[in-house]
């Protein structure tokens, strides 16, 4: 099991609760969401809950190039400055300084891995990619001189569309595999801002291949940030751990979450994470499913299901946002625990789960259940195709 909480706004006692219940293996703290002193305290507090848990801090250096940034507490961090442009990354001395200040800050925090500064890469052909490589190189060099520092993960924040070209992905992998580094913190950024499990098949296949090459073949520790349900597929392909947050904005990385906008979003609707459907559906949809007596077929089989089953119906239960968030982690953790670590077997299992979920969706829809546009099983066809393409490319 290797599910990491992707920390975000409003942590309350969720981490304590989820760690206590054994749903999480690690936490990726987000610098943006805590003041530096509070971040230190949160790390210390979380460490006191479990010695075995893996703690990381995403320094979120990349936000410094977003305009206008929604950076909350980041300006209080020594390495962060809003409004950086490409010219701010010219010259080895500057890159060394960025790497030094970002890594030095983490060294004193008691984390298990250091995460390098990076920038958002929209394409493997644009200049930001070269900047990301240069920052990685500078971080590697600086880290090599640190005594007794935790192992380093090189950050790559890459747009899903960058994965469209196999050739460019190959070049990227050729480059990364020349580095003598412990691992990679890989964040696929998503173009669509709405929360759903959809992921274009060709892009996803290429991302799975990257995970396979880096994690399985080359033995790097890969932490796939902000990947939620998609992280399960990445785990089967060689990723060590995947991240998912309590808020939808921390379950997938969408740049718009880091850019200022007018007005707030509407409050999230109550959801239920269904293992058999490989999706998070709305509570109102779960109610429809209960109405046709198929509730058992979509339940995840985790302890918090009791909150639903002991009530007369999903909508009459005490289900609330907090329970939904904790349940989401329980579900992902259970699905992840079913993977064995044997790549071929795990990919087979995921492929079989996708087929089952697809059949279940079809049965429910044929029985009159109406799903929202973003909670249908449309993602399953994309995932199935992605797994097929990935298997062909990786010759699995």
């Amino acid at each position: 099991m290797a599910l990491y909480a992707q920390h975000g706004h409003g942590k309350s006692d969720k981490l304590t609760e989820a760690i206590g219940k054994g749903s999480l293996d690690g936490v990726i703290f987000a610098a943006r969401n805590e003041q530096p002193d509070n971040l230190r305290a949160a790390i210390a507090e979380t460490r006191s809950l479990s010695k075995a848990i893996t703690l990381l801090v995403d320094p979120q250096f990349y936000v410094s190039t977003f305009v206008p940034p929604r950076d909350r507490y980041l300006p209080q961090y020594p390495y962060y400055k809003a409004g950086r442009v490409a010219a701010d990354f010219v010259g080895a001395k500057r890159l060394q300084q960025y790497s030094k200040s970002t890594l030095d800050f983490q060294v004193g925090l008691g984390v298990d891995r250091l995460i390098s500064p990076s920038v958002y890469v929209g394409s493997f052909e644009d200049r930001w990619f070269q900047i990301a490589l240069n920052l990685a190189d500078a971080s590697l060099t600086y880290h090599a001189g640190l005594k007794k520092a935790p192992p380093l993960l090189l950050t790559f924040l890459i747009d899903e569309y960058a994965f469209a070209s196999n050739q460019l992905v190959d070049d990227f992998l050729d480059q990364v595999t020349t580095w003598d580094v412990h691992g990679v913190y890989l964040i696929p950024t998503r173009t669509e801002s709405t929360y759903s499990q959809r992921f274009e098949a060709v892009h996803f296949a290429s991302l799975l291949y990257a995970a396979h090459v880096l994690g399985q073949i080359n033995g790097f520790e890969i932490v796939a940030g902000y990947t939620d349900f998609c992280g399960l597929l990445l785990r089967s392909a060689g990723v060590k751990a995947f991240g998912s947050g309590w808020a939808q904005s921390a379950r997938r990385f969408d740049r718009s979450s880091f850019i200022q906008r007018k007005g707030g979003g509407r409050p999230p609707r109550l959801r239920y994470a269904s293992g058999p459907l490989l999706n998070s559906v709305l509570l109102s949809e779960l109610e429809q499913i209960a109405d046709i007596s198929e509730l058992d077929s979509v339940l995840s089989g985790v302890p918090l299901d009791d909150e639903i089953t002991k009530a007369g119906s999903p909508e009459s239960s005490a289900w609330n946002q907090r329970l939904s968030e904790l349940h989401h982690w329980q579900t992902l953790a259970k699905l992840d625990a079913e993977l064995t670590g044997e790549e071929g077997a795990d990919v087979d299992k995921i492929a079989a789960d996708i087929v089952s979920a697809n059949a279940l969706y079809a049965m429910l829809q044929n029985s009159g259940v109406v799903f929202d546009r973003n909670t249908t099983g449309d993602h399953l066809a994309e995932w199935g195709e992605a797994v097929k393409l990935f298997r062909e490319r990786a010759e699995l």
Partner: protein
Amino acid sequence: MAELPRLTLEQVAGLVPGASNIRPIGKGGQKLVFCGDIDGRPFALKFALLPALTGDADPQTEVEARAAREVETMRDCDSPHMVKLGPVGLTVSECEGQRLLFFSEEFVDGEDVAAILQRDRRLAALEVVRLGLHVADAIRGLWDIGKIHRDIKPHNIVRGKASGDYVLLDAGYAFDVVGESLSQSFVLVGTVPYFPPERFDYTNRRSVMDFRSDLFSLGVTMYQAVTGVHPFWTAGETSHQVFARILNQRPRPPSTIQPGLPAGLDDIILRLLGKAPHLRYRKIEQFVTALRGLGVA
């Protein structure tokens, strides 16, 4: 094919004072090679022909530049499995109207692997593992000084008669990953059936060529040595067919051709033959550990 110098044994003796017992041992690439004793030890003496001087400011020729790099590589590489520079450094001289460039290198008394394979068809698995370990050390030594060999093949690997150790020869095509390229764009140097796919396939070769390219050529050599069959080339095929196979064909596991190989050797050799560098070993030590893990070395 470059023109070779015309030299008699007496002329060689005149050009290399102190050398005795001179005898011809062959020709390779752009060089004529003799063996001669210097201070009681045998050395290979390699001669190349340089173009005549024109009287203008003559630029360094490709032959001179390559020889300089070859000498530098032999001098700097610390691996005992890479041939060493001899006592005569890079020298330019004239003989009978020919402008000559020459140097000496360690004479490895033994037999090259191509000759062994021609005679015995294949090597025992244990020998292939030793070959792999020894050549890997040479690749490591080269990479430590920022170089790749680019022409690893059976013909360039000699098994010492006395020690049985394998030594990698001919750094004439060695490529300096940070230095100036000596090859014109789109001109491929080396021996095609041992080329890694990235030698044909990438437009910006310099950014992706590293020791993993040499690992691929070593993989081809090990495959050929353990099975007696080249993984991508069959006699009579055109170079285009070889290109296509190197780029696209996954070779059969060696044990399907030569049963009874140590478990795991297939995986190691096939990994060396990965179509992209990222599919091969990212550290030479990983390859060495895998070979040692077979328990046959």
